[in-house]
């Protein structure tokens, strides 16, 4: 589903944010990226979303290459930032309607331009993600962070992208909202969506992820599946990698 090969990024100031990152996620899995600040999680997500160009390597989503067809690749991904910020002057419904309107897949050879969002009943989608009816036609400025996340998910849903990129989605959510959001993500996974999520929350990562990856210095230094992790203490492993004990051992 998502394949990252030798992805590297060096910023203008010389800082190497990604160092030949290789990663593969299979369809219908939740992949959680762990790592300290500056480890390259956000840079990776930014490159996949096309916010910044990579200095080397490539990204494939559903066999579509970022370097060859960046516009089409964007149709395959939906992005949810840490704080879902929308147009404050508009209601939740109007925001969703706008993003549904622009999620048209551009025409390619042999294919006409289509808009996958047209098949959704927007009100129903908003109800499905758990937004109370009385807030649907309320201005976004009155929404709580959890409600914004729900709108964000709804926007991702109507985009009908098979791949979801979540950038620290749980930070700042209260426990109830976190729980709801987690349930929503499970539901999405069961619907066949692939989810790449970066987080600092190790316990939630272990609880949710099908695969956990730890990034350190722009590299993916460890990947373990849910079954591999069941008997291990992820917190311990994470701290080992962060403090570079494992790397040192390997080098020796």
């Amino acid at each position, binding site marked *: 589903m998502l394949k990252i090969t030798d992805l590297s990024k060096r910023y203008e100031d010389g800082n190497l944010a990604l160092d030949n990152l290789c990663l593969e996620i299979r369809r219908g899995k939740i992949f959680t990226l762990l790592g300290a600040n500056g480890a390259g999680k956000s840079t990776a997500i930014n490159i996949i979303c*096309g916010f910044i160009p990579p200095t080397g390597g490539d990204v494939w989503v559903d066999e579509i290459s970022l370097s060859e067809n960046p516009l089409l690749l*964007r149709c395959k*991904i939906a992005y949810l930032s840490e704080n879902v*910020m929308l*147009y404050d002057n*508009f209601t939740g419904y109007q925001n969703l309607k706008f993003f549904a309107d622009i999620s048209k897949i551009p025409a390619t050879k042999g294919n006409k331009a289509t808009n996958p969002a047209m098949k959704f009943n927007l009100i129903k989608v908003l109800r499905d993600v758990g937004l109370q009816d009385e807030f649907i036609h309320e201005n976004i400025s009155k929404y709580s962070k959890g409600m914004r996340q729900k709108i964000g998910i709804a926007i991702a849903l109507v985009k009908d992208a098979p791949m979801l990129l979540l950038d620290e989605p749980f930070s700042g959510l209260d426990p109830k909202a976190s729980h709801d959001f987690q349930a929503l993500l499970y539901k999405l996974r069961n619907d066949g969506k692939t989810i790449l999520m970066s987080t600092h929350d190790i316990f939630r990562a272990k609880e949710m992820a099908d695969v956990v990856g730890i990034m350190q210095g722009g590299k993916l230094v460890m990947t373990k599946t849910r079954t591999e992790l069941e008997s291990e203490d992820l917190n311990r492993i994470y701290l080992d990698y962060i403090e570079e004990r494992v790397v040192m051992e390997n080098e020796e």
Partner: protein
Amino acid sequence: MLIPLLEHELQNLLKSRRIYLTVTMFLLLFATVFIVRAIDFQKQINQYNDDVMLNDKDLREATNYSQIKPRAIQKPIIFSIFNEGFKIPRVITIQYYEPITNTMTLNEETNLLYNESTQLDITFLITFFLSLFILLISYDSVNGEKQVGTLRILMTYPLKRQSFILKKTLGVFFFVALTFTIPYFLSIMGITYHFVNVLSLNFFLSAIFYWFLVMLFIMFFSLLGIFISCCTTNPNRSLVYCLLVWIMFSIVLPISWDYIIAPRLYNDTLTQLSQGYRDKIMQAQRIMYNDVPDEANINLVGHMNWSGRHFFYETNVAGWKATHEQHHRYQMYIYENYFPVTRDAEQAYDEIQRKRIYMENVRNWVFFYNPIVLFNSLSAQITGNSREDLLRFLHTTRELRDELVNLGVSEEWLLDSRFFIMYELETDVMYNITDQYDLFMLIYEYAGGHGPLEDFFNEIGEERAVGYLQEMVSQQERYNMVLPRFRRYEQPIYTFSEIFARILQYLVVFVVSILVLWVMTWRKFLGFDVR
């Protein structure tokens, strides 16, 4: 794809409180300036009607050419409500023996170039305030969206970056265009309703061109605001940049040109030209009043006086014939010496104006990237009150004069003896000569009510005197012919192609600068950090 984007952008703008404040301010300014200018135009129209009536009255009541003072009266340009442009003198008296030039004094003329920016009209409103308003609306359109966070989500959609810039530009453009267009066309309707009898097709042509030009102006500034918005990620900073750019464009650059660069480049030439003009005028005056050689000097036999309407020579009847001949010599002298110099003075004046036009063109080419300068001069071209129009007005007036000359009016008139006026004709003398009463009545009227005829008769004998009188009567008949119909000077009506030709070159520059700015904005946004 663009339509939902644009729809959204317009809705977004409509929901912003800042916009309402800006629009309200602009509408208030527009209404105020429009009403002030419309009232001013009504005054000009009234003045024009008074002038025309006065002129017609003069023509109607005149019995000979010496009594008429034909004037070229400039019809007020209705578009001066929107663009005051270059101040053209309202009335020019067509004089046969003095150069037809601007009635303003030289001092005013030399400073005129630097005083033009103080005019308060709709054009000033657009160049000064509307540009600021557009920048205030668009300064945070890109980086503001980044700051809010929506840009990140938008950029994960299959949108080209150009589409995003286009959406932003068109959003601001449509909004401001609507803000301008509605009061503009309302005001056009108001003018149509109120000034219907002074309207012409030219007005509507100009109105359309003017509107089109304003649209280009708005487009440029919308793009400029968005370009600045792409240059920095901090909206506060881009606000400061926008204000700086606005101050540069609207105040610093044009004024530094007018007061620092242009004087350095052209002051010498202009002073030289003005001095040349002044010299010609002085020379003409010297020829007229001082340098007259003795054999042509009328003052040796009489005194030249100014009656308020025309010159006349006071003399007594004893010297009548001598004075008559002297007068003829004097007029020949004027004809041969004074006239060519006055024509030179006119040429010198035209040179000054042509130099100014050249300077304006250079200014436009130097500021080809600055729509404020371009818009100012282009709108004056469209509305027909540019400096070229002043020259055109003067030339038409001279054509009118030459027309009169061709009718046998001016130079020939000058050579004649109608200026030769006798004084102190006593009514009792006149009544004594009863058998020639009618003749004397005619002479009396013809001479303007002056002249002691008695001495005249005594000196030269009755027979010769009657001969002179008959000659005078025949001359009087000659001048009592039906006066030619003077055509009323009116502002030339430009055709569509004429207006278009006048503005074409700068219009191309305008459009090209917009395209260049578009490419710059687009390239800038390609490198914009959307994270």
